[in-house]
């Protein structure tokens, strides 16, 4: 199929990218080849096309040589398409008459064979030259932005982002699936390495969220559906029944006191099941919102309809208890979304040889955090399940981290929280504390100093992997005493057995429960471990591939509180920069439907991930809302009539590109 194109003047620019491209691709030969291609008026090579002089070169040529199309053979268009479009625009050329040929990621970086690399680079350039001829000037359209941000997840990341945005005067919707905000940080007693009281620094922020005029807090809520796109997302939130009205409750806690269950009977999830609660409860005293929640699974009335409802009597005229409450949905229009859904602590049960879940003396780190917490199930006393105070405590590092059977990555915080736990346990019990570690990773600010301090306090360190945990030798009653930890002490070069009364497992951080559903909902990518992927690891660390959706905190990867807070503020700044623009340009690579050719077969309508297509009931044809279209091309590919088409990806352009490649391979 030969299409005739008008003669146009094309400029081709081959970038060396230092040695990134030039090290593998013969850029001189490639440039000479490009000059021979039809319509090419000028072909040049340059060391760094993206640099200022590189862009200037391009601009000058456009003006002096009256270039009508530009091909830049360089890196991925993901990186610099915008740069070169902008340069062309500055020189008076429509930015969409620029095409990139990716000879770095697609060529130089995937082979060491110079001959093959040159051949492929030629094909890529030939394709781009052939395609760009058929490009048409396009105009950007603008869409106005809803100046409101939704923050998903009410841990320290979400709290920080919400406060920063709220303080800047923007409306914030903070969505938290648990009955209270605070996340994991609220469970901790102290934070490393400064040993600040976690509650003392966190709860003021939680209260600030509650009282902030710009922040609307939705606890016990989950995002159910997301539609729309950058600047104008429409989010449907499922509000789960609390059975107590947030508006009417004053937080007097009478309902909890007067519950027919005279004493707490059910494991409190917030205390990792170590403490007990009633069916009506507060997860912890400083919970925000400061409103109790009724658990439908354990409440007698909700379960069986048989109860004296003493809570209702206790609440009296305030009438805050509402057993009729059902889950309901609320919908919000927001311009940007910050995802801060946090992490989940690794469950060590499958690692049988550590004895978690078998021996009552084995704890996960998060459980010990609760034991240490003054508001926890033991009021801050470190006692074993039998009530005794441990005299010998072992802490095993890297549980589920740096382990190819579980998570190959380092969870970044375990060394430091293990040191913190060692310090706190020693401080509270005077016990002999032994850390079993592989490597101590303490690269943060004041981390190394803290490590030294803990060493000086007499905490023991044994470098080696724990191979086995067994019950200790029997006492006079024949009952085993404590546990014996067998470890391959790699510094001494021998296997050592260490008796302990309590064993703490420093568990890994892994993606939160339901992370994959969250990822799909917000159209994000994730790494192989399941943590959400930033748009660029260095230069766009809080952006995602979905414009207008930003990341904060451990949902992006394990990190400590200072990093989380910094990232939350970065995400807030990005969201702010976006919604403060009032309007944003839309990429013009949108799809449209040629009404004459459309039969109204409805094929495209359900396929659009952005709900941008509807059927005109009068004409019986499909209509695409350009402000919603993100240019994914799904409808274009599916349309059996060829009536749905896409700017920058017309059939002709795609065939030109293919023909360009095929004619030079």
């Amino acid at each position, binding site marked *: 199929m030969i299409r005739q194109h008008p003669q146009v003047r094309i400029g081709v620019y081959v970038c060396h990218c230092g040695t990134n491209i030039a090290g593998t691709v013969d850029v001189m030969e490639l440039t000479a080849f490009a000059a021979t291609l039809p319509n090419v008026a000028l072909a040049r090579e340059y060391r760094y096309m993206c640099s200022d002089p590189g862009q200037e070169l391009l601009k000058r040529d456009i003006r002096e040589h009256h270039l009508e199309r530009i091909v830049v053979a360089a890196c991925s268009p993901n990186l610099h398409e915008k740069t070169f479009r902008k340069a062309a625009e500055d020189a008076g050329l429509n930015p969409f008459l620029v095409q990139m040929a990716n000879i770095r990621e697609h060529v130089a970086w995937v082979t060491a064979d110079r001959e093959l690399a040159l051949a492929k680079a030629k094909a890529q350039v030939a394709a781009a030259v052939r395609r760009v001829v058929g490009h048409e000037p396009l105009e950007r359209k603008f869409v106005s932005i809803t100046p409101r941000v939704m923050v998903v997840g009410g841990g320290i990341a979400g709290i920080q982002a919400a406060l920063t945005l709220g303080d800047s005067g923007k409306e914030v919707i903070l969505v938290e699936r648990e009955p209270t905000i605070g996340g994991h940080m609220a469970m901790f007693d102290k934070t490393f390495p400064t040993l600040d009281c976690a509650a003392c620094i966190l709860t003021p922020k939680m209260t600030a969220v509650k009282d902030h005029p710009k922040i609307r807090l939705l606890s016990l809520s989950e995002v159910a559906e997301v539609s729309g796109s950058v600047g104008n997302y429409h989010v449907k939130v499922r509000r789960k029944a609390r059975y107590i009205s947030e508006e009417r409750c004053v937080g007097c806690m009478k309902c909890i006191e007067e519950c027919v269950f005279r004493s707490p009977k059910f494991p409190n999830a917030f205390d990792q099941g170590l403490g007990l609660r009633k069916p009506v409860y507060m997860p912890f005293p400083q919970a925000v919102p400061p409103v109790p929640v009724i658990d439908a699974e354990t409440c007698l009335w909700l379960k069986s309809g048989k109860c004296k409802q003493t809570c209702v009597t206790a609440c009296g005229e305030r009438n805050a208890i509402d057993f009729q409450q059902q889950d309901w949905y609320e919908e919000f229009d927001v311009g940007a979304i910050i995802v801060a859904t946090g992490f989940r602590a690794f469950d060590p049960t499958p690692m049988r040889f550590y004895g978690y879940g078998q021996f009552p003396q084995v704890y996960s780190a998060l459980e010990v955090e609760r034991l240490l917490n003054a508001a926890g199930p033991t009021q801050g006393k470190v006692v074993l399940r039998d009530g005794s105070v441990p005299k010998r405590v072992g802490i095993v590092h890297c549980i589920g981290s740096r382990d190819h059977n579980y998570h190959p990555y380092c969870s970044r915080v375990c060394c430091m929280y293990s040191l913190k736990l060692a310090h706190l346990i020693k401080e509270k019990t005077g016990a002999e504390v032994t850390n079993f570690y592989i490597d101590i990773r303490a690269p943060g600010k004041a981390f190394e100093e803290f490590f030294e301090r803990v060493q000086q306090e007499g905490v023991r360190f044994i470098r080696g992997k724990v191979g086995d945990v067994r019950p200790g030798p029997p006492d006079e009653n024949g009952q085993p005493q404590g546990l014996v930890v067998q470890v391959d002490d790699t510094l001494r070069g021998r296997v050592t057995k260490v008796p302990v009364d309590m064993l703490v497992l420093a568990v890994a951080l892994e993606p939160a429960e339901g992370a994959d559903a969250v990822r799909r909902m917000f159209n994000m990518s994730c790494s192989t471990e399941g943590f959400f992927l930033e748009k660029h690891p260095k230069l766009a660390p809080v952006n995602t591939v979905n414009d207008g959706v930003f990341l904060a905190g451990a949902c992006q990867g394990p990190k400590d509180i200072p990093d989380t807070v910094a990232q939350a503020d970065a995400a807030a700044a990005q969201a702010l920069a976006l919604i403060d623009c009032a309007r944003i340009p839309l990429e013009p690579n949108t799809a449209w439907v040629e009404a004459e*050719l459309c039969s109204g077969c409805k094929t495209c309508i359900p396929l659009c991930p952005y709900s941008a297509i509807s059927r005109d009931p009068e004409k019986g044809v499909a209509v695409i809302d350009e402000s919603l279209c993100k240019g994914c091309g799904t409808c274009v590919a599916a349309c059996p009539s060829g009536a749905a088409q896409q700017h920058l990806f017309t059939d002709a352009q795609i065939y030109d590109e293919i023909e360009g490649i095929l004619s030079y391979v």
Partner: protein
Amino acid sequence: MAKPKVGFYWCASCGGCEEAVVDLAEAVLDVVQVVDIAFWPCATDFKRSDVEAMADGEMAACFVNGAIRSSEQQEMADLCRRKSQLLVAFGSCSHTGGVPGMANMYTRQAILEAVYTDGEFSTVNAEKAFPSAHVSRPEGQLELPTLDESVKALDQVVVVDYYLPGCPPPVKLIVEAVTAIVEGKLPPRGSVLAPDVAQCRDCPRIDSKPEEAFIKQFVRPHQIHIDPEKCFLAQGLLCLGPATRSGCDHACIKGNMPCTGCLGPLSRATDYGAAAMSAIASLVGSNDARQIGAIMDQIADPAGTFYRYSLPASQLFRRLEPAANGGQQR
């Protein structure tokens, strides 16, 4: 003024297209009033030599139906081309390869063996006679036409001016085409003489097609009682109307049978089967890869369904020769 001369010729076809000309009924008289039929071997006694005797371009138009799959058909296509001002590909086989085009799923050798030696289709062939271009008989030497390796659409062997699609072309389209030729009111050369919009446009059942991905199961017409009002796809029946040109006044659909796609692709669809497949696959109501696979597997004979009329004209053209390993799965 002399009436313009027209010709009709058939190549690899079933005869249905000739029937369609006869089906013009009274309209055929109107046609004959305005044109002279100069060549129509199916209906009247014309010989090849009559055509060869004509001056080049003597016929105003020649309508050729059937696909091209033999040396003789190639010669006749060339001849008709030379003797006509306008060459019209008439019917699906000539337009896109048609049902004979399904032979491109097999090699020529396999087809001949199946017919002549494997005995499944042939009459008794005790002496194992096998087609050959040169045949010696006591009476003398015979030179016979040979069967091509692949079936081709008409425009794959000669330049075609217009296409009249359909299996066979609807009477209305034939009359319109002849009228347009006589009156000289033709669209740009290369056009398909049928509306460039798919069947769904005026389909009486379109309102009952859901606006969602809804297909959980494919069924075939003999397996259910077909609702005469409801969209076939909504009933799980493979209707290719979304990918197929209109112009037949929904003949099959009104006969309560789903569209099989004989009128071929829209002008912007490069490959009919691919267009139809992507449209149908888009309707499958599942996001689970395995379930989607299971639903799609219910489509009996996908090649024969989606490329029933158009394999030679498709981007595939034909099935490739078996691989060196005999086509075994790796």
